[in-house]
């Protein structure tokens, strides 16, 4: 590994003379990024495009909230509004949150945690990124050629009869599905085949357990989304009459197909979030994680049980009563492993040494918000209450609490936690706290009001609403603007950190997983040594070194296996 001379790093910052070789400056030019096989670069490219998608989805959200400021028309027509929430939902789900954590942080961190040089199948990894790009382009193209107005669920027969660009959007989602499958497949293989010496299954960092469980769902559920969307496309283009009642098809069967994927998909969203939580809470409490095995097993349990509950989205759909009852009963089973995790995280904080740095602030808001989101799932899982609450804003609030309050908040925790590792720079802690606070307050104002109006009977996907819901909607809209300001601040200080941020030490937080053993940002081949793994939560093995403003291992040889031969 030679010292590089002055080169441009990937994010455009000039690297100082004599700067160490890192994956960021290992190759130059756009092509060295677009066709890289390096999991770290792929992770960063994913991060860029996925945050862009989040921004796009967020813009749609702000249009939605602005329109709902008053009943009737505020800024757009009904047809435009219907397209807005469809695009908001579809972009947020298919482009942003499903690939979200695994493709970005998972890609970057997973091989590092394994002490490996890369994922097992780097070409597939790149292919998955390209599929994402293609799929996203097709989906975004649908916006240009007339957008879609079906809701992100594409229920037939509305989706087979509407005149909007359903085929383009579903084709996009179909391609994105394969991107997701390949990511999951890759992680399964990597975790099976590339664990370093000493890392038995129960010595894996819990982040890996979470990503692994996610991958199981990605691999087993996503193909069904694929065939569902393919059938929908065939329905529209050829008229195959499987889902379209006009041709003898069954629209409720479509819903079974859709939710067979899309329910497990919500755990594709939350499991990686939980995975991040286990790392962050332990590290910022300065404590060994509590109940490792329960947390690990509960991830697998959630993944498997998630396949048994899809019918809870269909309690009022015409699904038979017997099926309703079975699905309601099974639904509650998923709540148990989630509860286990929450309690274990709390117990981890017990007698700890808790630092309220930005990642931990997000972790604490996660606990707060996910508890609300998850607990409101109980109202929905229970049959008689769901009949009333289904398709109202109560559901909208529920899923924003779990998806935003859960996944997005944990994603932010993860971004702040690994940011120094990824870019080798620190961000402004003070601004991070301000934005975390704004997001927390804005979020609750936006969506807690929606629980109340939902249980009062405000249906979702409503462009127009009765006078008496106005106050709720307006409070919600105000909240969403606070939320937006929080995000703009975040975008500001993170961008600033890329250029001006203080240099980060290898281990700024005192994490004991392997990614903290290499430089920030890591060199091209990740580690100078072959690594071996110890207990990933043995935080006592580290001590603070004020001279480098970071943590160092008391006994570095405990993680080093043989030195690496020249590659």
């Amino acid at each position, binding site marked *: 590994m030679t010292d590089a001379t002055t080169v441009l790093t990937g994010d455009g910052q000039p690297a100082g003379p004599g700067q160490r070789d890192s994956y960021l400056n290992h190759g130059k030019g756009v092509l060295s990024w677009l066709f890289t096989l390096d999991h770290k670069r792929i992770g960063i490219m994913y991060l860029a495009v996925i945050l862009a998608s989040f921004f796009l989805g967020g813009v749609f959200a702000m249009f939605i909230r602005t329109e709902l400021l008053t009943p009737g028309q505020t800024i757009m027509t009904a047809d435009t509004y219907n397209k807005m929430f469809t695009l908001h939902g579809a972009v947020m789900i298919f482009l942003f949150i499903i690939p979200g954590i695994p493709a970005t942080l998972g890609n970057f961190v997973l091989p590092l945690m394994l002490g490996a040089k890369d994922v097992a199948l780097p070409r597939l990894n790149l292919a998955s990124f390209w599929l994402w790009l293609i799929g996203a382009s097709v989906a975004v193209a649908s916006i240009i050629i007339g957008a879609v107005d079906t809701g992100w669920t594409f229920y037939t027969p509305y989706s087979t009869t509407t005149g909007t660009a359903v085929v383009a959007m579903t084709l996009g989602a179909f391609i994105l599905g394969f991107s997701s499958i390949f990511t999951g497949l890759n992680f399964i293989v990597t975790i099976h085949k590339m664990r370093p010496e000493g890392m038995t299954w129960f010595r894996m960092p819990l982040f890996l357990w979470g990503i692994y469980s996610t991958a199981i769902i990605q691999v087993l559920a996503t193909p069904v989304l694929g065939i569902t969307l393919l059938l929908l496309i065939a329905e529209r283009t050829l008229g195959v009459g499987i889902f379209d009642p006009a041709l003898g098809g069954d629209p409720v069967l479509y819903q079974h197909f859709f939710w067979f994927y899309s329910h497990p998909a919500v755990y594709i969203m939350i499991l990686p979030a939980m995975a991040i939580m286990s790392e962050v809470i332990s590290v910022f409490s300065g404590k060994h994680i509590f109940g490792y095995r329960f947390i690990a097993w509960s991830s697998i349990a959630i993944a498997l049980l998630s396949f048994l509950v899809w019918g809870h989205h269909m309690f009022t759909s015409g699904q038979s009563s*017997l099926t309703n009852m079975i699905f309601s009963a099974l639904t509650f089973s998923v709540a148990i492993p989630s509860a286990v995790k929450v309690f274990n995280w709390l117990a981890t904080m017990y007698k700890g040494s808790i630092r309220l740095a930005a990642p931990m602030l997000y972790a604490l808001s996660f606990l707060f918000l996910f508890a609300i989101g998850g607990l409101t799932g109980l109202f929905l899982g229970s049959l008689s209450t769901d009949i009333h609450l289904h398709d109202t804003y109560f559901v909208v609030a529920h899923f924003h609490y779990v998806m935003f309050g859960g996944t997005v908040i944990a994603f932010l925790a993860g971004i702040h936690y690994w940011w120094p590792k990824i870019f080798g720079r620190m961000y402004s802690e003070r601004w991070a706290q301000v934005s975390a606070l704004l997001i927390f307050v804005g979020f609750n104002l936006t969506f807690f009001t929606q629980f109340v109006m939902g249980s009062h009977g405000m249906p979702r996907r409503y462009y127009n609403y009765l006078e008496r819901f106005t106050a709720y909607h307006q409070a919600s809209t105000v909240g969403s603007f606070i939320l937006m300001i929080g995000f703009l601040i975040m975008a500001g200080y993170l961008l600033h950190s890329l250029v001006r941020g203080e240099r980060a030490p290898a281990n700024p937080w005192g994490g004991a997983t392997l990614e903290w053993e290499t430089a920030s940002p890591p060199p091209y081949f990740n580690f100078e040594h072959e690594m071996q793994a110890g207990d990933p939560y043995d935080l006592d093995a580290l001590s603070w070194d004020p001279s480098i403003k970071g943590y160092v291992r008391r006994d570095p040889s405990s993680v080093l296996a043989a030195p690496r031969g020249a590659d």
Partner: protein
Amino acid sequence: MSAHEQSFVHIASVRLLLIVWVALIFGTWLTVSASNVDLGFLNIWIGLAIATGKAVLVALYYMHLRWDKPFNAFVFLSAFFFLFLFIGFAMMDTAQYQIDLIPGYSPGMGG
């Protein structure tokens, strides 16, 4: 995973390949003949049993599962497990709500 583990690959003999081939052809003949005998509801199950027998032969011998890591077989089988789950629930539900359906409803078929 570890360097000291010996690489181990199975190579199927020509004889084995041919024997399996004969068995598969025989299985095909058997399914076709079985379908010509009217055994009521049993037909479908017998057919499925023979087809599954053929599938198992292909998987075990042509796909080397018999000598492969058990985990690979587990992965493959779990796909079937989740598929049956899907089929099972879907069949249970659709059968239950049949009475609500308007028989032969298909206004778009033009007749």
